[in-house]
């Protein structure tokens, strides 16, 4: 049966009026076979592969955009965690920074938006090479433009590496103070239970369980979901869940088709569709506004966590029905700076850091793109990270933190990043410090719920 005018119009409006897009096509690339004791030799092999595959990714993405008329907003590459590649090389900052710059140059040459994977898996302990990489992060990320970092600092199976978490407060402050508005910190996310196939930045990497290549795709349509919720102002919550499921089913099917065809064109295996709802600063493309369309006065007020739980559950059910390859993060992103509704709620005083943390207990992504005063102590930054990662560890889910300490700014000030990163009101952090807790260091043992065998 030929597609009806109504069905065509529904799809066309999703892209023209409600910001439906393929947010990212991300090619995961294994670089383990490039490892060498000679940095120059490794850099040569890595550069050749990134440039060649990156250019192919762009060519294929352009063809798909013309064929299906759905925009592909970002083209990205995720690599094997850089710490593994640096293991046999001298443990000096200069080595790490040289490698980061080489990756940056290759990414630019291939005209790829971002390259992720500049990080390490240190949830249980840290090797000498990993420690060296962590210490070099402020310099490496501030001297490059397109490189994104990640660190897995905790997992349900290993517990929490409090030595590394304690150190991160200092590392992130150092990185923040190397740029005018702390923007360097937008390029690094720290995790509990990091997925190996997440296509979204800043946390993407190509995990060690992955094949040589893997094409992962991130779809996004907060505007589409908001529109369908707004069209059903009076139905009960069971029906509302059904309506959201049906809509997410459709956009996930579009993502699956485009991902499979991209992978086929490139001659690489298709990986996953990440069905996360990722907002942008465009008017109407906001997750907060979905919650508000559901009937909560403003995100952050009582009712927000329950509404978000319903939304995410419906998104997952619709997505899982549409594709057998749903993976990555697949939750709802609630980055403060990238969502107009979130920015409004923080400015109005409705959304606090504490409520934001509560929202992340039902949302799989974590505290994202929020600013804190520049004089926030490193131990307090570490404590914010520890709280958020504990939610992930205890609940067998991914959580992450992307925090921006804003140099010279105090609570209530606004940081303007521009573009996709938007602007962030600086959030109030309670005055008392947990330094004595953080500075105990060590490893927080894995929760009893990890013993399942």
């Amino acid at each position, binding site marked *: 049966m030929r*597609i009806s*005018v*109504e*069905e*065509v119009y529904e799809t*066309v409006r999703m892209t023209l009026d409600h910001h439906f897009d393929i947010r990212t096509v991300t090619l995961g690339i294994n670089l383990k076979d490039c490892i060498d004791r000679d940095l120059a030799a490794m850099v040569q092999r890595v550069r050749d592969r990134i440039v060649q595959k990156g250019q192919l990714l762009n060519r294929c993405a352009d063809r798909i955009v013309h064929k*299906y008329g759905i925009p592909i907003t970002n083209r990205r590459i995720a690599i094997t965690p850089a710490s593994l590649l640096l293991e046999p090389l001298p443990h000096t900052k200069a080595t790490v920074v040289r490698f980061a710059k080489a990756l940056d140059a290759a990414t630019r040459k291939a005209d790829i938006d971002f390259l992720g994977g500049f990080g390490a898996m240190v949830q249980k302990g840290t090797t000498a090479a990993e420690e060296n990489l962590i210490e070099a992060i402020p310099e490496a990320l501030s001297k490059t433009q397109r490189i994104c970092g990640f660190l897995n600092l905790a997992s349900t199976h290993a517990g929490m590496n409090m030595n590394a978490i304690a150190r991160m407060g200092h590392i992130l402050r150092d990185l923040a103070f190397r740029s005018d508005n702390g923007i360097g910190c937008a390029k690094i996310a720290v995790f509990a239970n990091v997925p190996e196939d997440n296509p979204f930045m800043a946390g993407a990497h190509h995990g060690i369980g992955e094949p040589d290549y893997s094409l992962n795709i991130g779809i996004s349509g907060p505007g589409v979901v908001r529109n369908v919720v707004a069209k059903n102002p009076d139905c009960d919550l069971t029906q509302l869940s059904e309506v959201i499921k049906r809509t997410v089913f459709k956009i996930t*099917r*579009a993502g699956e*088709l485009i991902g499979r065809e991209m992978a086929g064109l490139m001659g690489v295996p298709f990986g996953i569709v990440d069905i996360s709802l990722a907002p942008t600063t465009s008017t109407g493309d906001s997750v907060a506004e979905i919650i508000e369309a559901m009937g909560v006065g403003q995100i952050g007020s009582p009712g927000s966590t329950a509404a978000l739980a319903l939304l995410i559950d419906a998104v997952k059910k619709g997505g899982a029905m549409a594709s057998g390859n749903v993976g990555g993060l697949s939750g709802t992103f609630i980055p403060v700076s990238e969502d107009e509704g979130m920015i409004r709620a923080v400015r109005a005083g409705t959304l606090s850091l504490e409520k934001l943390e509560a929202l992340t207990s039902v949302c799989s992504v974590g505290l994202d793109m929020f600013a804190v005063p520049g004089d926030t102590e490193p131990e307090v930054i570490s404590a914010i990270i520890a709280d958020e990662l504990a939610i992930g560890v205890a609940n067998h889910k991914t959580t992450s933190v992307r925090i921006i300490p804003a140099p010279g700014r105090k609570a209530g000030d606004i940081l303007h990043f521009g573009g996709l990163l938007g602007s962030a009101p600086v959030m109030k952090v309670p005055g008392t410090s947990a330094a004595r807790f953080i500075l105990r260091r060590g490893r927080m043992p894995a929760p009893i719920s990890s013993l399942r065998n």
Partner: protein
Amino acid sequence: MTQERPSQICIVTVTGVDKVGIVAKLATVMARANINIVDINQKILEDTFVMTMAVDIAGAKIGMDKIKASLDAVGSQMALKITIQDENIFKAMHRV
């Protein structure tokens, strides 16, 4: 005996205000590119004029990017939004 070429169906969607000459202009673009028009439908949806045209681009003399550019030119000339998309995207989204 001639060998039958497989078809590649795309859907052209026109939205905006109905006026004289839309089909004529689109048909001219298609004929010049050697694209066969398979089906045309139109309706008023949510107070907007919507026309869909199924076309077979298997024998097209130009690529999707060029077809799109010609449609964009017609769109801006007649104050209409015109898109062209492979039919499979609609099948994937609306058919289980």
